[in-house]
């Protein structure tokens, strides 16, 4: 779960990490007050729970109040990577001498926390990793002892820091590590971490908190919901995973791997998935019904392809869910089903009686879904 920048910066401040002075506004009219408090120039930053905001036009510099007002108006009307902008963080523009990168994340392969640092901040770390991997210093952290100050200093020297900057870097890294551990974070990142005429400062600050650990940080439960959009939000409430894509074949599977494989097969036979929808393990008819209904109600979806391999999930429950959705929903769409596994026979019977085409092979079912989608179009 992504925190918004201002939320993450509140935590940064609590851990003594310097951030630029800033004011959160919720409508363009508040921008003047923010400027009165901060002085000019200011940076206006759209608060959306997603990375890559800068490139998407969510961060703008304003040199005078009129410009600031215009930018605020424009940002509030914008959607950034699909997220409406409900608030803007107005910050005093810093006088930047140098931009660094610093983050803490998980090193899956070595089952460790790792610190990543670079003397070349500002860029997306993925790009930097691709284009100039040698510019990123990776410091694995021994879990028994935690982050070692002297190792941070060694990294600092490698990215060209000395004197007071070296000390600030050490302090900020220690605080970020502590935040990482205290908040069950998947990522704590400052990019850029800047050397300014006011000292070292986290110009941007990002935190992703482990969704599975939210129960230990109930203050962020609301933030989690905010991250989901439209139908995804409804889906999350109903207990399945849902991501919208831009094709026209609705996909329902059980298990992330099988659902992705279903998308792959559809794609392989020339179709385009409209979504990813994983009903999860052991789904009963009610959950299946809701899942089918979400796709029936999505105007982009022309055909629905249900691919279930029943282990704990009973094929009969899936079949009953599909039939119930079709009965309840005013919208009718062709459905292709491939249901294998536990209670397969009953499942088959239920679907056949409802006149839903049924396949034993994933490939045959996919081909039929692709054919139907073309026919409808």
């Amino acid at each position, binding site marked *: 779960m992504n925190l918004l920048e201002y939320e993450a910066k509140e935590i940064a401040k609590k851990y003594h990490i310097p951030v630029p002075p800033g004011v959160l506004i919720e409508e363009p009219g508040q921008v003047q007050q923010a400027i009165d408090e901060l002085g000019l120039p200011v940076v206006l930053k759209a608060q959306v729970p997603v*990375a890559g905001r800068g490139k998407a036009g969510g961060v703008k510099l304003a040199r005078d109040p009129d410009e600031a007002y215009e930018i605020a108006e424009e940002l509030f009307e914008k959607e950034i990577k699909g997220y409406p902008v409900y608030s803007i963080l107005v910050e005093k523009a810093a006088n930047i001498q140098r931009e660094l990168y610093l983050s803490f*994340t*998980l090193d*899956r*392969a070595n*089952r*460790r*926390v790792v610190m990543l640092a670079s003397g070349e901040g500002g860029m997306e*770390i*993925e790009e930097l*990793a*691709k284009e100039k991997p040698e510019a990123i210093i990776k410091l694995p952290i021994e*879990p028994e002892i935690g982050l070692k100050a002297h190792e941070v200093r060694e990294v600092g020297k490698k990215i060209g820091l000395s004197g007071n900057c070296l000390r600030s870097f050490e302090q900020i890294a220690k605080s970020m590590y502590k935040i990482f*551990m205290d908040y*069950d974070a*998947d*990522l704590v990142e400052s990019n850029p971490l800047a050397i300014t005429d006011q000292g070292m400062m986290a110009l941007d600050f990002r935190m992703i908190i*482990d*969704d*599975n*650990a939210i*129960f*230990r940080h109930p203050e962020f439960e609301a933030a989690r919901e905010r991250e989901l959009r439209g139908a995804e939000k409804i889906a999350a409430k109903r207990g399945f*995973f849902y*991501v919208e*894509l831009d094709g026209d074949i609705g996909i329902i*599977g*059980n*298990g*992330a*791997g*099988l*659902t*992705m*494989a279903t*998308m*792959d*097969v*559809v*794609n*392989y036979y020339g179709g385009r*998935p409209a979504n*990813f929808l*994983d009903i*999860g*393990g052991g789904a009963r008819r009610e959950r299946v019904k809701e899942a089918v209904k979400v796709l029936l109600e999505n105007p982009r979806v022309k055909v629905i392809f249900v691919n279930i*391999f*029943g*282990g*704990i999930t009973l094929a009969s429950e899936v079949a009953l869910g599909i039939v119930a959705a079709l009965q309840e929903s005013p919208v009718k769409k062709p459905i292709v089903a491939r249901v*294998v*596994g*536990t209670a397969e026979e009953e499942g088959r019977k239920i679907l056949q009686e409802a006149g839903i085409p049924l396949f034993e*092979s*994933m*490939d045959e079912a996919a081909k039929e879904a692709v054919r139907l989608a073309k026919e409808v179009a």
Partner: protein
Amino acid sequence: MVVLVDENTRVVVQGMTGRYGKFHSEQMMKYGTKILAGVTPGKGGQEVLGRPIFDTVKEAKEQFPELNTSIIFVPSSGAADAIIEAADAGLKLIVVITEGIPVHDTLRAVRYARSKGAVVVGPNCPGVISPGKAKVGIMPHQYFTPGRVGIVSRSGTLTYEIAYQLTKRGIGQSTAIGIGGDPIIGLDTVEAVKLMDKDPDTDLIVVIGEIGGDAEERLAAAIKRGEITKPVVAYVAGRTAPPGKRMGHAGAIISMGAGTAESKVKAFREAGVPVADIPSQVPDLVEQKLKEMGKL
């Protein structure tokens, strides 16, 4: 010999008194797995499916010294503790079914258990099955048949799918390991493949990967270095998934420079591993390899 579980497997079920734990314990017992005891804190002294329940794994182990394996169905908030407990009791295989464990907890527990010499499979995994011998997991076992092809998979249902397709072609499996889809897991892809590589009863290994992480790339590198001698056939789910989207499991995230499907497929191909575009090509590739080896 097969990998990790066999006729000598003796199981304690942590979280046996819960609905889910009980259901799968029954399934495993029906399959012939030797479950000797269950553990649920505070419920010591009860009995489930004719097996005694203890408050701690240590007590179960004292009663049944032959216990060597644990399967964990404990809810996510207590699952890390359960792993640590199983490791302290000296169990050598710990299969963690529980999903939704906070990743910092998994990190701590898995590292600890490994330092004690235990193999942890999972969390958030379907478990391990050696068809015809034993099942320590939740997979629908009717789709698996005894044979000589190993399966290592990050995905649950996709494992069943592939096993089913192999079975339909008459290709049996030595062992199938669902290693789990979480960002931090115990036994990883490379380690699981190496176990199968050493198993005299496995001829060929099917690896089912998915987007996210760099497990597939690391396996390809190990194969390139000659660390794996048996043929490997791979499938990577998620080629159609757009970057930056979460596809259900935490494991299926493309972000922070971790692996896209393209990078994984490319790495496998460069290591000489045939990669299926879709699941149904897996049996074809396996059949072809086995024929080349003169095993079919």
